[in-house]
């Protein structure tokens, strides 16, 4: 099996690479690339993302044909894709970080700043928080409800169709922290930094 982590200069992806290598061992052929052909030929794709919504979308658009290739992969061919952090946020139609920026539009909705309730909640939301699994998701196989995951973000994805939400986390309000829509998966938290349970989620995705 070929799994590709899309390297599109979206910031620091070393930890994502290390965690997938740890889980994949020799079972999987792991590529880290923005090569369109390699992405096309992959069985699964991981879309990481750090920094701002705007900077990630811009970085993605800088690589000619990447958005079309990802569209083809996830929407036309319906092959499994996992978005992490801003990678998940980019599924939205639109993001409001820095300035209004168009997303991939795969899961209708918007990405806006977490309401800090007049400073009552510190932002970024950094640290370990429990996930409340509200829908069975293939990537949560053998993950107990209320498991701790590592978060670091100031913006949240608000999908129009709440049926795509597979887990939320409690910070200021119920923040969407995981989505599943057919073959498209996303986590707002960082499975690559969430110790054993995070690695299990990566394993679940690889084993799909």
């Amino acid at each position, binding site marked *: 099996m070929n799994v590709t982590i899309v390297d599109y200069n979206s*910031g*620091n992806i*070393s*930890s994502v690479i*290390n*965690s997938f*290598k*740890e889980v994949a061992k020799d079972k999987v052929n792991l590529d880290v690339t923005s090569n369109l052909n390699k992405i096309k030929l992959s069985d699964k794709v991981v879309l990481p993302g*750090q*920094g*701002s919504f705007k*900077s990630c979308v811009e970085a993605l658009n800088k690589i000619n044909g990447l958005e079309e290739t990802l569209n083809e992969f996830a929407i036309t061919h319906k092959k499994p894709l996992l978005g992490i952090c801003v990678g998940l946020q980019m599924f939205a139609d639109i993001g409001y970080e820095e300035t209004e920026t168009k997303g991939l539009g795969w899961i209708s909705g918007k990405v806006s700043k977490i309401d*800090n309730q007049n*400073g009552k909640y*510190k*932002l*970024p*939301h*950094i*640290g*370990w*928080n*429990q996930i409340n699994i509200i829908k069975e998701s293939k990537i949560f196989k053998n993950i107990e409800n209320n498991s*701790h995951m*590592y*978060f*670091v*973000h*100031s913006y949240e994805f608000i999908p129009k169709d709440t049926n795509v939400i597979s887990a939320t986390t*409690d*910070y200021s309000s119920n923040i969407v922290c995981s989505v599943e829509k057919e073959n498209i998966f996303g986590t707002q938290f960082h499975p*690559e*930094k*969430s*110790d*054993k349970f*995070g*690695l299990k989620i990566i394993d679940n995705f690889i084993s799909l």
Partner: protein
Amino acid sequence: MLKNRIIPCLDVKNGRVVKGINFVDLQDAGDPVEQAKIYSDGGADEICFLDITASNENRDTIYEVVEKTSKKCFVPLTVGGGVRSVDDINKLLNCGADKVSINTAAVQNVKVVEDSSRKFGSQCIVVAIDAKRNEGGWEIFTHGGRNPTGINALEFASKMEKCGAGELLVTSMDKDGTQSGYDIKLMKKISSSVNIPVIASGGVGTLDHLVDGIKSGASAVLAASIFHYGTYSINDAKQYLASKDIPVRI
């Protein structure tokens, strides 16, 4: 609910672990990669490396340590010490650090904080503030606590928040190495004046000090000696905090 983090810190010199007492008197004590792994297996919420390598020719040792650690530990890794430029930050992140803490460079040139947070995101930029009490409040020091700056710590903290810092790592120089507890007043003042998370550092000797640190408003507590010398395990600390009704990840 978001849990309060316990962060063991390892002082690293020339690729080896040491623990400073009041920033001097170093004792060699082990392999940082192994130490970090013990901490992460023990439930540490994050690992912090502070590189105190003085000579330039040995500066690259930290990159190797970070690279090896990030392949073994799957919890966040923060690295600081001697970070001078956006390029240094880039190198550490590429080696597998998740956050980089900036001290002297943030004071000397705020552009390093602005540019790096814009380039890599605020989530990976931690500004480390070394503060010492003076008549009017607290003054920040640079170069591992050697150089006074005349800059007020509270003002600097707010400025760093505006420049894009994602977190502040606040160390009391009066307390560091004394094992007599954090400078609670300092932690309270800073954490109530900024809207970004504060990590309390400097002075932990007992588990009650960790409790006091969290109660002061810090989102995370950092300690070195009590963990490094095996006085307490990470799990001891977490169980104790939980017994005091402080939310932790167990």
